[in-house]
């Protein structure tokens, strides 16, 4: 049955390429497959859009759903994370990511190491980096507006002085939040375990001692890499080395 679906999907793919189907049409085709419960075909259709270097939160969300329904928990969580990066405030994405993560056979509780950082992260979580960056720019403009008023036009009253200090404070806060978001979304490299069996070692080699058994769907932070291995940090702050082909980078 699965083989038949793959053949049908391939036919659809070549047909779509030859007939110049738009990415939007391919997306809707994937939705049709999903509604018909042909989840593997739906994945194929969504993958064709992704292969064209196209992206949207809805596309990744639907891809995550198709992966979840076809029993591929690791990829489901991967695509929900990709969707969340594009639209962090979407409650559907948050809900499905949360729901899918309940099915990971190994649960790792996150450890809140720095309460101040946790607070900042909870503030920036619902916003995209671009939103925060433009808010920072607005604060920058406001701050320089007050500077121009003071030093360019020579207004020295208390309102201008208060404006300078307050807008500087605002600028520092939003700039810090923006940099934190940038660090979290772009500088910190994350990956999801996609393999059903994923052994984590104490060193970058199969011959090293086993640290733990990971499970599909676990989210890790990539700290470094060596050969075929990533040095990863799990959410409960345990570290280890895992083979690169057992994880997918978000």
């Amino acid at each position: 049955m699965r083989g038949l679906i793959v053949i049908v999907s391939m036919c659809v793919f070549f047909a779509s390429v030859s007939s110049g189907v738009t990415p939007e049409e391919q997306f809707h085709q994937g939705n049709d497959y999903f509604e018909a419960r042909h989840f593997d075909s739906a994945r194929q259709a969504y993958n064709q859009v992704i292969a064209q270097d196209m992206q949207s939160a809805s596309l990744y969300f639907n891809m995550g759903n198709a992966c979840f329904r076809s029993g591929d928990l690791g990829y489901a969580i991967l695509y929900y994370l990709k969707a969340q990066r594009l639209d962090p405030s979407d409650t559907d994405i948050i809900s499905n990511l949360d729901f899918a993560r309940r099915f990971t056979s190994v649960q790792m509780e996150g450890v809140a190491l720095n309460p101040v950082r946790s607070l900042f992260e909870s503030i920036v979580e619902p916003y995209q980096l671009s939103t925060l960056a433009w808010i920072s720019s607005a604060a920058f403009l406001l701050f320089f507006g007050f500077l121009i008023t003071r030093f360019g036009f020579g207004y020295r009253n208390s309102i201008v002085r208060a404006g300078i200090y307050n807008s500087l404070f605002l600028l520092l806060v939003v700039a810090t939040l923006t940099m934190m978001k940038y660090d979290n979304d772009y500088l910190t490299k994350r990956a999801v375990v996609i393999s059903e069996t994923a052994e984590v070692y104490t060193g970058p080699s199969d011959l090293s001692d086993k640290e733990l058994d990971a499970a599909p769907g676990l989210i890790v932070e990539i700290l470094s890499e060596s050969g075929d291995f990533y040095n990863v940090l799990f959410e409960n702050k345990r570290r280890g080395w895992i083979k690169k082909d057992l994880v997918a980078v978000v």
Partner: protein
Amino acid sequence: MTGRRHIVAVVFLVGLILAGTLSVAQTPPPLEVQVSLNRDTIGMDEQALLEVIVQGATQDIPDPRMPTLPMFEIFSQGRSTNISYSNGQLDASVTHRYLILPSKPGVFPIENISVVSGNKRYSGNPVTLTVVGKSTSASRQTEDQARDTEGNSRDLFAEAIIDNDNPYVNQQVTLTLKLYIAVQTYGSPSLVEPITTGFWTELLGTRGPYQQRLNNRTYRIIERKYAIFPTKTGELSIGRATFTSTVATKRQNRRRDPFDIFGMLGGGQEVQVKSRPLTINVKPLPMEGRPADFSGTIGRFTFKATPTKREIEVNQPVSVNFAITGVGNIKSVAEPTIPDLSDFRVYRASSNESISKHNDQIGGTKNFEEVFIPNRPGQLTIPSLSFNFFDPQAERYRTVHTQAINLNVIKTEGYVASPDLPYSAPDNVISADARDIRYIKSDPGDLSRRAEVVFVNPLYWVVNVTPVLALLATVLVRRRRERLQGDIGYARARRASKAARQRLVQARKLASEGDSSQYFAEISQVLLSFIGDKLNLSPHGLTNDKIAQLLQERGAEPSLIETTLEFLKRCDFARYAPASIGKSDIEETLVKAENLMVRMEEVRF
């Protein structure tokens, strides 16, 4: 004068008498004495706690006077004071506690416990303590241990007791360690626990110190109990427990330390006592009647299944709690086996255990939370599950069962029979406690090529650099304006070029009108004004020599100075000999004047 002295003396005397009267009238407030016993009847080897509470509206509460009670040994256990102020009223109470050890059986009234305050005696209520003759006598073995090889009673000894020396494997055995102390000791004794290889051990608790009479001597006993579970069959041994205590040494042969005022310093000697090792013969579980799926649990248990609800929609989870409760090693209870169910998908959610230690028996409850997701609508049943264990008291295997759980599974709108896939209705309901994934999105959204991060967007940089440039520009403009307003020389120098060019235009008009004399006069004046503006000097006082000197001082090239002076001379000549000037000379002069001014712009005035 004498009369006045008499009056003072009388007043003083009256005052004294009044003060004395008042002090006599201020009698201490009445007191109340309450006497109570924690037990009315005790055995010969037991003890009772006598409490005497003295209450009154004063802080000065006297100690009670105890009657002579020859049939008891009485030890003070201390006192506690409680003082409270309520609505300006003082209420104080002092509680004295006494430990009473009987020396013979009988019924003994305890009365006449009293306090005396302000020449008045306050007696407490009488109580009666019955001492029964029978005593929970110590075992023969304990009495033997209490004697040394010469038959004298020991000051200190340890004992280890087990309640069963022939248990089944994994059956609880209670190990009791006791330290008997008949002498004064300092501090708490320390214990090195016995080696219990081959047992899983759980501490049950510590008791004491309590008192017991052995060989006509009163011992204080500290007791610690363990539940030990043998993990293998055969002969297993429990090692010696070692108690270490600091015992007060006898003084007769010791020189008294002059600084040891209370006789407490350095008066202790560390003493170690060890219990005897024990041997346990662990027998295997019988093969007869052993169920095929027996998991090795020993004890007495019940098994109960409780669903969170009995009516659910198809493909919605229902959680069932399987609770195994009873006495035995609850940690070793294995998860019940759930058979393959065609109507359900089963997920194990969690398990937890709570351990109880009632009556020195380890027991408790182990909960297994399983999630059942029905695949189809209808009346579905989660079948009865069974759990096997070995009952060591009955010495046979038992099986307990849960009740089968009937569930009413409702078919929802849009349901399509599909046994192997979770189902989600298109009408996705947003709920904090999600039971399934939310449905796919029909709108592809902003489907676009992967965008670069906002920081490499040129517009972002334009927006952020613009205010910086604007600030610089406005500051520079402001400074220039302020200088032009405040520095005349600067203002003249800055405006010199513009003013000169305007005047050159005027001069050209004069030339076109044919007034060459006026033209050259104006040209000469334009250049002189230009130099005057640049140097912030009046043009009227500028002679050719001064111009040469000033230009030289400002570092102007000699050729420029020479050309300038020659130009001025030429203008003067033309003013006074206009007939010799042609039209071409007029044009040439104008160009020369402009060139000179351009060259002078390069001089730093």
